[in-house]
């Protein structure tokens, strides 16, 4: 994508009177780091970037924003928030619209067609981070890693993030402004992670998840980063009734993770953020992708495609599968 055009458009958008700020990506402080940027003026717009490192899903900031009580006599700020989205992020925005988490009039969606993002861990392992800022660019058949002025060409397969291998919607499905031409969609790879767990027997799966969930430190990062976990009164925080105890042990960790996966069934848009931020490296994406696959195969429903759709868990069809019923 043409960065000049991106910055120009962003400056135009933030100059609009009805826009509060724009959320995008900018360079971090060192190495491959990329930070979210909240842009309010043309000066800030000049910092924006869009590179294979912009893997984070910014749509989570739409609901994370703190709504403080207003002093008497003061009007709430109802200006729009502009947001840069990739294909997967745009599905999160759509799903938020479906659930009425945000209003369509409240956002300006700036679509960025995404040729695939880089897996940060793979990249840092092969090409360790340096103190200076490094850059990664897309080339015709892969990535160009530039660190300390040294350029390395890397094939796409080597560094592509797992969620991007499985991606079916690289182009934003909803947007007010589209930057650049839509990219060609690619054949999604087979979901080896889910397959690996799926082909074990029940005891094997239990043993697998026992090992994974025992590592969980219950930091709630997965919940906080998730664009669709925005309940103000989260059931996992609630003390009366206590659905899930706060103790960190296998039983509670499993209940926590099952509850979270269940609440995302039919809503998860597979942006892979939970897995990316997990400090214990629990493959949470496998849980969510498995549920997404079940919902797609059995119920013919895919979240985040149609803003007019009924929420999956708050609707039903008379001919839903019932082969499990005695």
């Amino acid at each position: 994508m043409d960065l000049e055009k991106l910055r120009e458009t962003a400056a135009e958008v933030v100059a609009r009177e009805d826009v509060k700020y724009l959320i995008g990506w900018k360079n971090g402080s060192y190495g491959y780091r990329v930070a979210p940027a909240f842009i309010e003026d043309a000066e800030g717009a000049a910092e924006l970037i869009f590179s294979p490192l912009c893997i984070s899903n910014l749509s989570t900031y739409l609901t994370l924003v703190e709504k403080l009580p207003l002093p008497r006599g003061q009007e709430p700020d109802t200006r729009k928030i502009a947001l840069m989205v990739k294909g997967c992020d745009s599905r999160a925005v759509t799903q938020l619209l479906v659930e009425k988490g945000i209003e369509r009039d409240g956002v300006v969606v700036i679509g960025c067609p995404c040729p695939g993002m880089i897996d940060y861990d793979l990249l840092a392992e092969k090409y360790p981070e340096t103190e200076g800022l490094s850059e990664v660019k897309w080339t015709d058949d892969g990535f160009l890693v530039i660190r300390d002025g040294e350029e390395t060409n890397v094939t796409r397969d080597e560094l592509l993030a797992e969620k991007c291998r499985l991606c079916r919607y690289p182009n934003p499905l909803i947007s007010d402004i589209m930057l650049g031409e839509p990219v060609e969609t690619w054949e999604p790879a087979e979901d080896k992670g889910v397959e690996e767990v799926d082909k074990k027997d029940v005891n094997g799966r239990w043993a697998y998840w026992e090992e994974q969930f025992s590592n969980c430190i219950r930091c709630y990062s997965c919940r906080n980063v998730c664009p669709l976990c925005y309940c103000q009164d989260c059931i996992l925080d609630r003390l009366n009734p206590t659905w899930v105890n706060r103790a960190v042990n296998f039983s509670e960790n499993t209940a926590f993770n099952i509850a979270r996966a269940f609440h995302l069934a039919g809503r998860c848009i597979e942006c892979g953020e939970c897995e990316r931020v997990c400090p214990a490296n629990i493959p949470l994406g496998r849980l969510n992708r498995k549920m997404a696959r079940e919902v797609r195969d059995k119920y013919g429903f895919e979240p985040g495609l149609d803003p007019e759709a009924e929420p999956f868990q708050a609707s039903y069809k008379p001919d839903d599968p019932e082969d499990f019923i005695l």
Partner: protein
Amino acid sequence: MSANNEPNIVAFLCNWCSYAGADLAGTSRVHYPSNVQVIRVMCTGRVNPLYVMNALQQGADGVLVSGCHPGDCHYMEGNYYARRRLGMLKDLMEFVGVDPRRFHMSWVSASEGHKWKEVVEKTVEDAREAGSFEGFRRRQIDW
């Protein structure tokens, strides 16, 4: 599971069909396993999937959810919602490695006392085969 290898079953029954069906089984003197602890709810649509998880955490070896047949719901559509949600929960639990024999769902109407007996027998039998579910017990601190 108790000392003599009898599984504990928690059953969530809808007030209008399955609870009346279980009642009918009782008044008709139908014999069925006594391992099942019945919890009456107004509708299967009221059964939060976390009820099932909590029951398993707190000592159940199997869970049964039973309601009206599709189309017969007292609240018109509650059991349709329950079918969708609990069907997904079953898939999820299976993926996490909870034995699918631990969770069952059934439609039992108020006149099906004998079906209730069969459902309970099947649930208890399955839970017994699946064995005790100690691994998932909530750890209670004994002060």
